[in-house]
């Protein structure tokens, strides 16, 4: 069972929820759950667990490397590149690695077979464990624009897992391509929001992408319940979205998290909430 944790708005508690679900899933079972941090721009879930990293490797985008002995400077590669990542100027071929999306089109159309592809490193994937949870994360290198290739190599390496194990994915905020990449392969998406106008506006966008476009079942967790109004709840009822839990606004939680203490470690009374979310989701997806 793969559960992704997402939200339109940032800072609503995705990482808190993802780490809590992973801890709850590790209780009373010998099968370690896997937590995948797909928020590669800001990978933070590892900060809340005592992870010993065992391996890591660089990853990135396949970019063209032109063999100038074979190249006739015909310019076909640059004609087909929609990203303007390759240009032919006289007897030179310029490749702009940071613009390249790694589609391989230039190498396929080159009539001379002069283009090889090499990895342009844009990030890193790492894995480890804290003893009860297996963990892996992707990290986008600073200055790089494209998180998706890092997310996709992370998922390719660690998914799919056998259906019996639980995988929790922590995604980035927003609703654009990195979120789609992170949640597309999951059985269920937990959307974390807060009961404010910002939270509601961004929840609607997240529901649109997850439920309406990707057709993945979803439920909502309302975090910092009590700070705003009841509009989020009304919206969930109208849209028939299950409200999985409400986490009250509690300064103690904010203080603990600011020190890197996971919710369920600092306030074990929340364990039941997350165990019951897991069983609700398991029932829903039938795994």
């Amino acid at each position, binding site marked *: 069972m793969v559960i992704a944790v997402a939200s339109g708005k940032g800072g609503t508690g995705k990482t808190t929820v993802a780490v809590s679900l992973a801890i709850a899933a590790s209780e009373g079972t010998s099968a370690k759950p896997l937590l995948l941090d797909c928020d590669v*721009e*800001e990978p933070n879930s590892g900060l809340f667990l005592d992870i010993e990293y065992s391996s890591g490797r660089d990853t990135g985008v396949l970019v063209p490397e032109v063999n100038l002995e074979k190249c006739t400077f015909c310019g076909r590669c640059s004609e087909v590149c929609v990203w303007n990542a390759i240009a032919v100027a006289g007897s030179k071929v310029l490749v702009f690695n940071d613009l390249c999306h790694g589609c*391989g089109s230039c190498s396929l159309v080159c009539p001379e077979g002069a283009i090889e592809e090499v990895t342009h490193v844009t990030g890193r994937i790492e894995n480890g464990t804290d003893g009860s949870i297996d963990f892996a994360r992707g990290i986008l290198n600073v*200055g790089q624009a494209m998180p998706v290739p890092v997310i996709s190599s992370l998922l390719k390496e660690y998914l799919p897992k056998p259906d019996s194990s639980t995988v929790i994915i922590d995604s980035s*905020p927003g609703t654009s391509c990195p979120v*789609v990449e992170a949640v597309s392969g999951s059985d269920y998406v937990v959307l974390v929001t807060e009961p404010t106008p910002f939270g509601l506006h961004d929840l609607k966008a997240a529901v*649109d992408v997850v439920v309406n476009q990707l057709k993945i079942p979803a439920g909502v967790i309302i975090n910092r319940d009590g700070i705003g*109004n009841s509009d989020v709840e009304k919206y969930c009822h109208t849209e028939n979205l299950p409200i999985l839990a409400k986490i009250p606004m509690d300064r103690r939680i904010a203080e603990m998290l600011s020190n890197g203490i996971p919710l369920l470690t600092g306030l074990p009374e929340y364990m039941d909430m997350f165990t019951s979310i897991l069983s609700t989701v398991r029932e829903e997806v039938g795994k």
Partner: protein
Amino acid sequence: MKQIVILSGKGGTGKTSLTAALAHIAADRNTLVLADADVDAANLEILLSPEKLEEHSFSGGYKAEIDQNMCSGCGRCLDICRFNAVIPPAPSDSSYRIDRISCEGCNSCVYQCPENAITSYRAVAGAWFVSRSAYGTLYHAEMKAGEENSGKLVTTVKNAAIKKCSEFSDPVLLVDGPPGIGCPVIASCAGADLAVISTEPGVSAIHDLSRILETVRHFGIMPAVCINRYDINPEKTSEIEAFCEKDGIPLLGRIPYDPNVTRSMSKGLPVNAYDPSSPASTAISGIWKEVSSLI
């Protein structure tokens, strides 16, 4: 023109609330232009309650399309697509299809199809708007959920805002940035004179602060830091301040946790328009003074 971008790395640290409150103060100049560069979660509008004047459609990248009558079912497109965007035929039929959401728009399949059965079109990926607010003209956008090219939409919004700035002498452009460090962030901070980084005293925000600082410096932009909800963890606040001092990063100020920030949101007002004497409003006045002296 002076261009100030509000960033954070981590989401939810108060970028939009801060931007709106700074706008409320800077509006006195009558040369303020605003841009919401968080096109995934465009919330500045909620606080500025503007009146929409113009709407423009935004076409993003290409999307491929297979002409079922011309497709021979050879599967070449499936073999070469690197983005898992080609859906193979179900046992009952023979037609290959494109998954619009996964399609990266590279056009590789268009060139590779031996039957020339694949074409591509520029899809509408969102819209951008020009609106009148009480604080200045607002340029903002809405990305269709699940779309790519948010960086390009950010650039479109910003270019329109910069053009507006040319109508004023000594204009100020205030840009509400997106979270993260990737493509829309890079687009939002291009050409900025100052990056105001809103952070919080917590392990996540501090981790993300170091990455966003590295990012803006990578692009040659001067950063300055303010600490939101500083009283949640005074120890970590001191840690951030010591780090900034050591690194020569200007500190703009501290904002306390203040429930008025959420209340003002429900009223569609910046916090200092809602309650000018609230603790957050007072702190933000001080931050604007620091910002003004830096630019």
